[in-house]
């Protein structure tokens, strides 16, 4: 299947799901459940991630008639997941972490450093879990998923300045954790 065919098939599923076709929505859940779960995991950690993913997908089903296709379906689902994560985290009050506040040329990573990057990814995954929920949400949306500061701020209900400050503190914290782990 080409990318175009995949896209058309998804549009067809979406059109059917928007009119209440549960089977079509089931196919969409199959396609997106890993993406939604991964984002939930990064935002709230393993304890709540499955609940967040489930609730986000249920909310998506309820709101599907209102989906107008202004953003990609995946982006729309991400937004719902972020909102759901925020709501459930507040409700559960299960904060995973305590509040926390060479070669100088950068020419990209050569192949021999690919392993180093993989190792860093593993360490980053655990380091992210130690950030405050607010810092974690901003750094995940901004740096991991490439959202803009404005988008992250809007979805999290904070100002852009707050988002920038949290992002900066999160990056500093991550850096110090990674350097400390060496």
């Amino acid at each position, binding site marked *: 299947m080409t990318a175009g065919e995949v896209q058309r098939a998804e549009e067809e599923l979406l059109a059917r799901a928007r009119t209440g076709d549960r089977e079509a929505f089931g196919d969409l859940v199959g396609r997106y459940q890993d993406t939604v779960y991964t984002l939930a995991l990064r935002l709230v950690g393993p304890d709540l991630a499955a609940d967040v993913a*489930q609730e986000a997908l249920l909310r998506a089903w309820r709101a599907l008639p209102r989906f107008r296709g202004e953003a990609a379906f995946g982006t729309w689902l991400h937004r719902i997941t972020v909102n759901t994560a925020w709501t459930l985290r507040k409700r559960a009050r299960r904060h995973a972490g305590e509040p926390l506040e060479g070669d100088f040329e950068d020419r990209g990573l050569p192949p021999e450093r690919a392993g180093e990057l993989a190792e860093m990814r593993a360490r980053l995954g655990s380091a992210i879990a130690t950030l405050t929920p607010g810092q974690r949400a901003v750094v995940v949306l901004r740096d991991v998923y490439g959202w803009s500061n404005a988008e992250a701020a809007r979805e999290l209900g904070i100002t852009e300045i707050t988002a920038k400050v949290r992002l900066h503190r999160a990056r500093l914290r991550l850096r110090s954790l990674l350097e400390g782990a060496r």
Partner: protein
Amino acid sequence: MREPQCVVAAVLPDGWRVPALAEHRRACLRCQASAVRERNVRRGLEALGADLVPAPMGLQARVLERLGEQDAADPRRALVARAAARYAAVAGLASTALVALVAGLARRHSRALG
């Protein structure tokens, strides 16, 4: 030992970099090294975005079991209507108070005249 400019440069978020520090950054090997480390962290974070963690078994089935009714009504409409009603009430009270004030002043003025 770090120079004061290095410390200031490290605590200022991106986009808040002041021109006076830019020159220091260009000349300071410590700040350049720090920038490279920060870029490496960001690169690692970006790489995380490509990772997918498989959803737990049964998630799809649980979601499909719990599907209720769809809702085409925009939930924001109720919030907007409530906010509009609040603003209208406040505006009504404010205009009533203003009218009463003007009437009181006018009465006092006419009494003083005659």
